[in-house]
């Protein structure tokens, strides 16, 4: 619960912290979606014909075919794993930051 005694200055810092959190969130998300599109649409579809000229080293897989049937799925799993780790860490950092602002605001309010 936001204490009713929150000073304008603390409220500003709180809003600032939330804004920073949302921006970091959007950056993490955009980078990962870019990787998702590069694997799922770039390697597996758009450049599949060109990549089929090569084979995956050590196997008989034409590279474009491999991306469409196996590789992209592996990339998808990794993208979501990285998202979970990065976002849950960002959440914890954000929580600590907000707790700090609220605690110092509480002291200023004479509680």
């Amino acid at each position: 619960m936001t204490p009713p005694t929150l000073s304008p200055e603390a409220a500003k810092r709180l809003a600032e912290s939330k804004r920073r959190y949302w921006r970091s969130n959007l950056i993490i998300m955009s980078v990962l979606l870019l990787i998702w599109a590069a694997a799922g649409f770039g390697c597996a579809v758009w450049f599949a014909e060109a990549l089929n000229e090569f084979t995956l080293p050590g196997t008989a897989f034409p590279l474009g075919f491999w991306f469409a049937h196996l590789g992209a799925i592996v990339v998808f799993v990794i993208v979501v794993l990285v998202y979970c780790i990065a976002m849950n860490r960002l959440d914890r950092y954000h929580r600590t930051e907000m707790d700090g602002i609220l605690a110092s605001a509480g002291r200023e309010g004479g509680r």
Partner: protein
Amino acid sequence: MSVQAYTLIFVGLSFSLYLGIAWWSRVRDTRGFYVAGQGVPAAANGMATAADWMSAASFLSMAGLISTMGYAGGVYLLGWTGGFVLLALLLAPYLRKFGHYTVPDFVGDRYDSQFARLVAVICALFVSFTYVAGQMRGVGVVFSRFLDVEIHVGVIIGMAIVFIYATLGGMKGITWTQVAQYWVLITAFVVPAVAISIKLTGQPVPQVGLGAELLPEVAGAAGVPLLTRLNEVMTELGFGSYTDAFVGAWDRWNVLLVALSLMVGTAGLPHVIVRFYTVKNVQAARWSGFWALLFIALLYVTAPATAAFARYFMLSTLNDRPAAELPTWFQNWEKTGLILWVDDGDGRMRFSAGEDNEIFRAGAIPSGELAAILVSHDRWLASGGADGTDARGVLRERGLSGPDRDIIVLATPEMAELADWIIAFVAAGGLAAALSTASGLLLVISSSVAHDLYYRILKPGASEQQRLLVGRAAIGVAVVIAGIFGIYPPGFVSEVVAFAFGLAAASFFPAIVLGIFNKRVSTVPAVTGMIVGITFTAWYILRCSILKEAPLTFGIFPSPINPQGIGAVGMALNFIITLGLTPFFPPPREGVQKMVDAVREPEDAAAALSVEDAPEH
């Protein structure tokens, strides 16, 4: 012991397990009934989501489709896994923070409109019914092949089981049953793939086996890679190479649009989205998105291996086989009409892409008519072409060349001559896949009717008991309707499934994403966007599949667009219209803007209005 005895044992054991779990997890309140009390651990929710998602179509039909399509079959692999990236990154954490029970709840509250809620309810019901019909059919097919009962008896048994555990346990019963079903279905899918991979390539990992060399005793020579051999055989028979990209109508744009439509459609399917409401907080929602994709990926990276192995067996065991040496699996499946052999008189089978092909399927032809076609073919053969008609030409014109794709997964273990218990276990896996998806869908239907329609629109003052009763009654009615669809399948099931994805892509996905990421979007632009998206997508699919008119290029794309890919265009249209209209309408009222802020902020305790404290619940 016979395959049938093993099947009875496996099916009996797995069904008692499901019912036991249902009894153990029965519920008494709406929160348990709709969202399993929001106390499901992330990994368990991931397994349940995976079982929920992987339907009879994923288990039975997908590998068959890939097997026939080769590279282009990748659209299903990409679409049905890539969608979970969108779901995990763009929707799951925010919808969990929002915290209500259903997808129409979010659409209705965010756009502050009962009309938007109603549009969402209708879409959710349509998508779910389309899907559930296919599941019940899958149950019937498995029962009729492996237990020798009529398809409708199989459907009724399946209906009874789903009804018991869905009404008893609601979401909680369904979740824990799905966890068990996941393990049954994934084991049943992976074990045969491993066994076949060892048999063909000596590699125990099917994904490695797919890219490896055939064993010398299989290939007749050392150092021949499986994919190379498959490409040679297929090119020789006129099918075109298995691994080459962009063959025939599957050009670059079509592959791209179909994959994108399936991805976005996946992210918009209500029975998958609601799973993220069942975990305890935002962080757990993220993790359960990861677990879900991981568990799904286990099946989706095995499917391409199964598909290529099946293709290899199909071509190498059928071609040039004399009538006296028909493989047993062929005789088993011939009875079901899902594969037919129409000989040209030389007494040897030929499975090719040309006019000399002799392998067909009965499709939707009634048995009487089929018998007449085959009798006429015998006369044609006996008279040396003077009398009767060549059945091959008749069946080819009806588009019935090649075996039915649905038998590939079920028949491959038989083709590879694996042990009887493995074959029986695959049957139990197919049932698990069909039942788990059916139960998830029935719950969405039930919550759409009892929660969104009855409680939120028709009778806001309804008590907890009334709502639970309506919810259970709705499941009962939905089971019966689904069963009827399963016994008397409408002839257009495959088109209707494309419809479900197209609608989900063109309606829910843009509405929810904009609802979260753009605070400025208000009721009128969002609802207009949804309606235009739905109408456009529905119009295109109907004109291509029901009216059989030729697909269009819209003057933008280099080739005509496959109706399965139109959802992506509908989605783009929805985004463009909603964002284009937004500046001309006032922003949403302050309460709605506060709600969006709260949804974006996972750690803010003040705004974290949990379900039980929210005034309207």
